[in-house]
């Protein structure tokens, strides 16, 4: 009995050795992301293709919960020395990551590996958002912005031209009243991500949201959103709510149902909802640029979504593997696949050209709307690029609370914004004390 078992053990050991030898040649890297649902499938397809075409690399992509959960887990993992090689972080976490001391800026990676890389191949308004002093710190991955969706059928029913969506807030109000008065809908407009839409209005009209050039020329110490412009925006929204044109629809995506089911005729929402809305709607969906306030300068709409950050302290082989994946994401076909599968922006200029050539945009112009919006906006001012704040997550919640108080009439727009600004400034002070 003893002999065979010894032989068996020997066989096992040699087998194990063989395995570990094979593994030694393969570099294993881990990526934590927050893409769920239909997006997860696209991520998995891309990762599979990467692994298949890179036999020396094993990339393990893990869904680690929503954005906030992924960041929390990353923080915990980093503090215990178990951080993944690559992590996806939402745009509001950008300053936190910049201050983390946990990452290698992506612009340094090619140099570290003795390579060069053409940074101009990325779509500029997107890379601008994640750049500091003109250098890219994290790799744009899933980028979106906000636009206006409208229900063409309801527009027709109310006697409005379905090919002439509102371009200004004045028109939104006018059309909205018409829609409500004609009895087609009880309310005309709603939106998702209220705090983000509020920020959009600042960038879209080239207004600074915080000091130190929107926190892009040093850490922001004071928010500016309670000035005349912010008051004007919130007064408009509160008035629209009073006139029953605007129905406050809650945070994130909760207003989408109302739009898809035809209870409201206009929705301001992230472009990343486009695929879902078109799938769910039984009417013709129209999209257009965000409405403007007349008499204010032009800026640009802000990029939202997430980007990829590279953890510092990894071996050169691992870093090379991570870089190989980031380069893989910049391949034309992959960027096209990502855009088509999710509705997020293609981040590579060549991919945009490819999409144009194959007529993708003329098949469904709605995919082009937001893209034209960011490309036609200005990109040379910090105000138009969007704000960067340390405690951004909290400040966006504070904005949301202020909007809720103002549109429900609990506080006047000015009082709500002043209260919010005071809280935000307090948070900025605490943040700066620690960094």
């Amino acid at each position, binding site marked *: 009995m003893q002999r065979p078992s010894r032989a068996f053990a020997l066989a096992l050991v040699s087998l194990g050795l063989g395995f570990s030898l094979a593994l030694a040649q393969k570099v294993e890297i881990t990526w934590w992301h927050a893409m769920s649902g239909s997006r997860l499938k696209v991520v998995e397809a891309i990762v599979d293709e990467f692994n298949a075409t890179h036999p020396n690399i094993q990339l393990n992509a893990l869904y680690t919960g929503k954005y*906030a*959960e992924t*960041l*929390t887990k990353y*923080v915990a993992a*980093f*503090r215990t020395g178990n951080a993944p090689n690559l992590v996806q972080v939402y745009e509001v976490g950008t300053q*936190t990551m910049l*201050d*983390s*001391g*946990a990452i290698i800026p992506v612009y340094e990676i090619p140099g570290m590996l003795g390579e060069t890389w053409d940074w101009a191949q990325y779509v500029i308004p997107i890379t601008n958002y994640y750049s500091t002093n003109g250098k890219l710190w994290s790799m744009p991955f899933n980028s979106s912005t906000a636009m206006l969706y409208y229900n063409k059928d309801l527009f027709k029913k109310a006697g409005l031209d379905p090919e002439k969506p509102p371009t200004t807030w004045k028109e939104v109000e006018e059309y909205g009243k018409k829609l409500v008065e004609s009895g087609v809908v*009880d*309310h005309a407009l*709603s939106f998702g991500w209220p705090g983000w839409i509020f920020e959009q209005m600042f960038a879209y009209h080239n207004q600074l949201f915080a000091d130190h050039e929107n926190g892009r020329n040093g850490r922001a110490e004071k928010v500016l959103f309670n000035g005349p412009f912010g008051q004007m925006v919130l007064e408009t929204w509160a008035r629209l*709510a009073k006139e*029953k044109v605007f*129905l*406050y*629809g*809650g*945070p994130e995506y*909760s*207003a989408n*149902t*109302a739009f898809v*089911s035809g*209870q*409201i005729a206009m929705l301001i929402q992230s472009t990343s909802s486009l695929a879902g809305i078109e799938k769910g709607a039984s009417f013709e969906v129209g999209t257009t640029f965000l409405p403007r306030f007349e008499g204010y300068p032009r800026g640009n709409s802000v990029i939202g979504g997430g980007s990829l950050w590279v953890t510092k302290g990894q071996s050169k082989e691992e870093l090379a593997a991570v870089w190989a994946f980031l380069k893989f994401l910049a391949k034309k076909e992959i960027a096209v696949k990502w855009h088509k599968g999710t509705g997020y922006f293609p981040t590579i200029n060549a991919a945009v050209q490819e999409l144009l050539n194959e007529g993708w945009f003329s098949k469904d112009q709605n995919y082009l709307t937001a893209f034209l919006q960011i490309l036609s906006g200005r990109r040379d001012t910090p105000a138009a690029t969007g704000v960067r704040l340390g*405690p951004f*997550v*909290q400040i966006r*919640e504070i904005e*949301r*609370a*202020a909007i*809720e*108080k103002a*549109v*429900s009439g*609990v506080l006047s727009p000015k009082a709500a914004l002043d209260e919010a600004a005071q*809280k935000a400034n307090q948070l900025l002070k*605490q943040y700066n*004390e*620690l*960094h």
Partner: protein
Amino acid sequence: MQDERFPGHPLLPYLLILPSVAVIVVFLIVPFAQSVWGSFFVTSPFGTKTIYVGLRNYLELFQSSDYLKSVIVTVYFSAFVVVIGLGASLAIALLLNQKIQGVGFYQIALIWTYALSPAVAGTIWALLFAPATGLVPYLVGRIIPGYTLNWMTNGSLALLVVSAAATWKMLGYNIVFFLAGLQNIPEELLDAARVDGAGPWLTFRHITFPLLSPTTTFLLFMNMLYAFFQVFGLIDIMTQGGPGDATNLLVYNLYRDAFIHLQSGRADAQSVIIFVIIAVAATFQLRAATKKAAYAR
């Protein structure tokens, strides 16, 4: 009763309780001590910088009108869950304790809410009250033309809806215990009362309710713990603390500061505060209740 010596080695009992003690120490006492320690510091999210701030985290919380509002909201919420929840559960349990046909069906129909996950319960209620598409706003709009019931902007309504949803979800649990308690009441006592000419109310007031008091005490305690600690999922699904912090319960505020805002020191201080509140409330409740509760001997 006489003291009976545990058989075997005198140290054996200690050895046998060691696993439980170890679990309590590792999973409860050590983390709690860490929370108390951590509450005296502020730390950057990635732990790159830590500053000792003494009691500043506590002072800031007590000076913050938002935190005080959160305390008030929590008191209102837990009072609703405990008082309305226990009252309704007891009433339903009394009805279910009748000898009627198909009572098993009714029992299951009223108990199953406990089997729902907070996420499902929250989604059901959120859909019912969805401003533009929900059933309740639709009905209200029909009854009062031109009025829009929107709990996304109406703070007191949101708090009411969240409280009702939390109470509803706990009904099943309460009913099960009340039913068990009711069925343990000796039939003879009720018969004797009836013979003495007591009506249903007097019987309930002087026999059923006092004999139920151990169950009631237990449920009072469990419901309070539930209202303080276990409603996070419901809030996260339904309102995320909004509108304008109207449903920002203490435990939700703590979660946000710890896991979304990454302010561990502030969150530690909050967990200590909640611990003190619960400890004080529990002590009072247990004292008052054990004095009054009639335990069958």
